């Protein structure tokens, strides 16, 4: 049976890298006593799949993992078994049974909504930057990738840019190719770089 797990990765756990996260989930499901299906071969691995890796330090309310189990148990039972098995900051929010041929996690996400705080930018300046972004049709940004650099129009990616009541920023980022990271969006919009960019708090609130 195949299941899609939605979980949060918050607080301390935001600082786990992707490899550590896989380890935490794999051992966690084993601690929960779930019978994972393993790949065949010399080094069998449990059949777990993930979406796009979340950058270290970003908190998220909406991470996903698909797992395949030998047994046919209800989503509710999986939630109960997994209630106490993860380190602080990792929490299962939803479990749903999915068809074996379901769309991969990555392909089923159209947009991600982020909330950004601790930018160290005065409110007036934030507002001005946002207004100027709103008024433009073209906001070019050069993506630096290993092989080549790629000019994209950020307007095609940012579906929403809003100021929240607590003065945090909300960005809805569309998932499309070439892929753009949320830190790159913030860098492009607000001119933050280096340590300043690393120090902001990012929360991935929801996906759709």
């Amino acid at each position, binding site marked *: 049976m195949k299941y899609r797990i939605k979980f949060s990765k918050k607080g301390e756990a935001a*600082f786990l890298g992707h490899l550590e996260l896989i380890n935490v989930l794999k051992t966690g499901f084993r601690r929960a006593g779930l019978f994972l299906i393993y790949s065949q071969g010399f080094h069998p691995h449990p059949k777990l799949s993930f979406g796009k890796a979340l950058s270290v330090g970003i908190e998220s309310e909406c991470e996903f993992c698909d797992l395949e189990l030998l047994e046919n148990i209800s989503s509710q039972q999986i939630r109960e078994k997994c209630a106490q098995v993860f380190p602080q900051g990792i929490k299962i929010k939803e479990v749903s049974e999915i068809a074996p041929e379901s769309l991969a996690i990555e392909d089923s996400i159209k947009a991600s909504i982020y909330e950004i705080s601790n930018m160290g930018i005065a409110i007036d300046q934030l507002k001005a930057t946002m207004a100027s972004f709103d008024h433009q049709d073209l906001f070019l940004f050069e993506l630096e990738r290993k092989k080549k650099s790629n000019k994209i129009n950020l307007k095609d990616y940012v579906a929403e840019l809003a100021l929240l009541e607590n003065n945090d920023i909300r960005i809805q980022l569309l998932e499309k190719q070439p892929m753009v990271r949320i830190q790159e969006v913030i860098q492009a919009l607000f001119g933050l770089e280096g340590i300043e960019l690393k120090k902001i708090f990012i929360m991935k609130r929801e996906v759709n």
Partner: protein
Amino acid sequence: MWSIIKQILPLVEKPFRYIGGEVGIAGKNWDQAKVRICLAFPDVYELAMSNTGLPILYNIVNNHPDFLADRVYTPWPDMAFQLKQNKLPLFSLDHKRAVADFEVLGITLPYELSYTNVINILDLAGIPFYSKDRNESYPLIIGGGPCAFNPEPVAPFFDAIVLGDGEQTIIQILEIVKIVKTRREQLNQLSQIQGVYVSSLGQEQQVHKSTVDDLEAVSYPTHPVVPYAAAHNRAGIEVSRGCQRGCRFCQAGFVYRPLRHRSVATAVNLAKENLASTGQEDFSFLSLSLSDYPEFCNLLKATQEATKNQYVNPQFPSLRAESLSDETLDIIKKARSGSFTLAPEAGTERMRQIINKGNTDEDLYASVQKIFSSGWHRVKLYFMIGLPGENEEELAGIVKISKHCLAIGKKHNRRAEVTVSTSIFVPKAHTPFQWVSQISMAEAQAKIAYLQKQLKGRGLSYRWHNSQMSFLEGVLARGGQELAPVLVEAYKSGQYFSGWDEYFNLEKWQAALSQFGINPEQYLKARDQDAKLPWDHLYVDLKKKFLWQEYEKSLKGQTSPICSLSNCLGCGVCK
């Protein structure tokens, strides 16, 4: 504290090293504990979490109603920089409390090259380095672990050092700290405990190591902390402590005598509980010589039965293959491991008699034959260079054996591989070789260069240990308290994480040594029988006479039998 830590974690590599909160932490209430101890491993998280000694103590302390144990490891230099930059004290992983807030700081001493990491921990915690400069407003600093058997180079930094098994000693220490509040009186009372060395009371006191008589009677973790990442990420079950072999170079084989075991039933239960609570796929039975476990085959069969259908993978770090039955090999074969490690230790039978690891070349080839024919395609061979009395024959022997093993392998598998690694012999305290000389760096480099040249070809690869590090290890392993200021100086010049190639710089160490007029070569020289050794006042129950006899036998190439009741060599450990 977390709100501040959270601000600097984005600036460091692998921030998971500092977040704590793993599955298996004790989570005790800070305020309700009467005495709090922070257990420290002086190296980076991934190595610290591969250690199985501190978790035993963590478990025992946290199971006691009055006491609390937390953890701290040496931060990687990038994190150390951020802590200093932001004027943050070194903090514990579980409670995120400043290390200086604990009543006791217990630091294990796993290897000599971690000594300056100990100083780094004290430095980042804001604790004066020397015991004499601290009063009861600072934590009581306790040392222990493998290097405690000659702790003199670091002794002045510690208030007390525990020799031997810590299971009972740690509780005795915490009981004293619970009641006695002045540092002077604490030290006086600590010195009365078996196995506790209080260096400030001088070297006149005789200290005898503490020994747990019955492993079954002391508790072993069933729900250990599960690492986010570790060099050895597996559940480890200690099945034996001590060794009956008496290989003359091996410090562990002497200082951890007598040989004690956990029963098959206990070991299997511990394996089951550890695998269930950690969710690990890999596990290992820990012992200095696992194939000597009295019911090794039964242990494997029982474990296999208890863990079937669970995708559990036993790992066997190194086995004496000559003693493995076909049935045992058959079980081990099922473990998903690509390579089988063997430790012939030396290149000729003559040298194996000198070091009392008296296996023959024929034994070895027969084992290798069995291993390749059972389906393994890679054999790892581990040798030492620089053993006492070594000459060209031993080096040629390493080459001959390695090539012959590969030839055996190729008969079974075209893709057979032999990986050879060498370390440099470093004489250690409380062994029959504590009096012998260590080879110089130049000699070691020449030997390594020879092997590099010879051990080439398809299927053959060669790895060697850094000769400069072995040199420094040799200095520290047999040094005395005069090296303490050298360690401080080396630390101040930036030398910590000295066991790591990217940070090790011998020139800085040499500068620190020469600043105190110390010629490091003197530590590598042979000692006379009646020479005063820095650890003469520390007893591991072995008679010095016995060690000397073993040394003399080695000179004649005579071996000693495995110790047993019917064949007692009178080492002095059994009462």
